[in-house]
């Protein structure tokens, strides 16, 4: 009963103290994390470290979606799984690891692949989505569903010795609102030719390369979830940790972070375009709607799989 004076249990102050003493998080940020629901699509090389750090940080609800089972060839990079759990569903394997790390998170396992029909009803249960998948079809589908449900998206990918990360639909706005962040289709309106797409199975992947990108996804998610709103409500006055004003956030410009393990410099941040006036999903003239998605009339596999007639120079 005494506990009611405090917005967190004493165990939580202990567990999260090292991040709560920073002005960027504070008690307010910790409460926002606790109230947040994050969906991770894909529990592989990106999803494993992303889930570990989001669970560690105390995200209230963490959804994991993946239809695959753990294979031995995953284990050099998918560090939430284990040899003993080979053959089990990746979502179940990861939840076992995550519960041992932090049992106070509410884990939701979605043991199937994402489909256009399921995307919207599932995304609506969350506040933010991480794209940790490994194919253009899922990347377009996840981005479309994030725009249509108004969720910001932290999208990353990796192959061989390189990685890329973009925060999309941030801030999330209705289709047609030019102040919303660009979506995946704004940046890549046409899918790459199918024959140019390599998976990690085909092209190979260095574990720490995909690991770095997954950890950075967790970081961007935490930054988005804890970004300071205008201070209101009684909780604010209890934010004893905010002794210094936190630095003003730089205006969010859409950027892509590129990583290349063997290059100098290894990292490069590049400026991306804003929303595309003729984007098929986030513009005023969008053709992709909640209806077209849930009805299953959109064939993402065909969209990405058609081999474009080759008219080379």
């Amino acid at each position: 009963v005494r506990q009611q004076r405090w917005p967190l249990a004493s165990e939580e102050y202990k567990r999260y103290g090292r991040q709560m003493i920073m002005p960027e998080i504070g008690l307010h940020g910790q409460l926002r994390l606790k109230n947040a629901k994050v969906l991770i699509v894909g529990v592989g090389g990106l999803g494993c470290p992303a889930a570990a750090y989001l669970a560690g940080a105390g995200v209230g609800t963490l959804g994991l979606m993946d239809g695959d089972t753990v294979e031995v060839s995953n284990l050099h990079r998918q560090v939430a799984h284990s040899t003993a759990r080979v053959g089990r569903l990746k979502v179940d394997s990861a939840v076992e690891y995550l519960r041992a790390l932090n049992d106070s998170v509410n884990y939701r396992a979605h043991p199937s692949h994402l489909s256009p029909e399921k995307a919207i009803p599932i995304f609506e249960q969350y506040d933010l989505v991480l794209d940790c998948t490994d194919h253009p079809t899922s990347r377009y589908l996840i981005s479309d569903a994030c725009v249509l449900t108004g969720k910001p998206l932290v999208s990353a990918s990796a192959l061989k010795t390189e990685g890329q990360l973009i925060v999309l639909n941030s801030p999330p706005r209705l289709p047609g609102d030019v102040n919303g962040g660009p979506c995946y289709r704004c940046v890549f309106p046409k899918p790459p030719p199918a024959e140019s797409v390599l998976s990690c199975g085909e092209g190979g992947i260095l574990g720490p390369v995909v690991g770095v990108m997954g950890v950075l996804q967790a970081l961007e998610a935490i930054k988005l979830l804890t970004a300071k709103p205008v201070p209101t409500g009684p909780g604010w006055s209890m934010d004893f940790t905010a002794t210094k004003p936190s630095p003003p956030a730089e205006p969010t410009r859409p950027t892509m972070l590129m990583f290349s393990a063997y290059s100098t410099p290894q990292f490069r941040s590049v400026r991306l375009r804003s929303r595309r006036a003729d984007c098929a999903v986030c513009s005023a003239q969008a053709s992709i709607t909640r209806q077209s998605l849930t009805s299953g009339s959109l064939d993402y596999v065909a969209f990405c799989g058609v081999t474009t007639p080759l008219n080379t120079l």
Partner: protein
Amino acid sequence: MSSTIPLAVEFTGGLELLFSNQRKHQISVPSSDSKGAPSNVGYLVKWLCENLIKDPRKEMFVLDHSVRPGILVLINDADWELEGEDKYELQANDEIVFVSTLHGG
């Protein structure tokens, strides 16, 4: 005009495999195209296809006379769509990066 423009060109995300497996290239391109207009990024792409690409699979770089879908062109660390796309006129020492998007995870 026989003057040239020095450029730093880089290929990443697997595109370097089409260019002698080398990421960074210091090149010089003619400062004007065959019609006498100042060389732009569209001209550079054509020039790369004629002079620098080593792999016969040119369609992995160019389709329908433009950079193929799934390749991001960066002009001095900005998406070329912020700079006028293929119409951007090349300046000395510009850094042009061609990035193939990755999909693995």
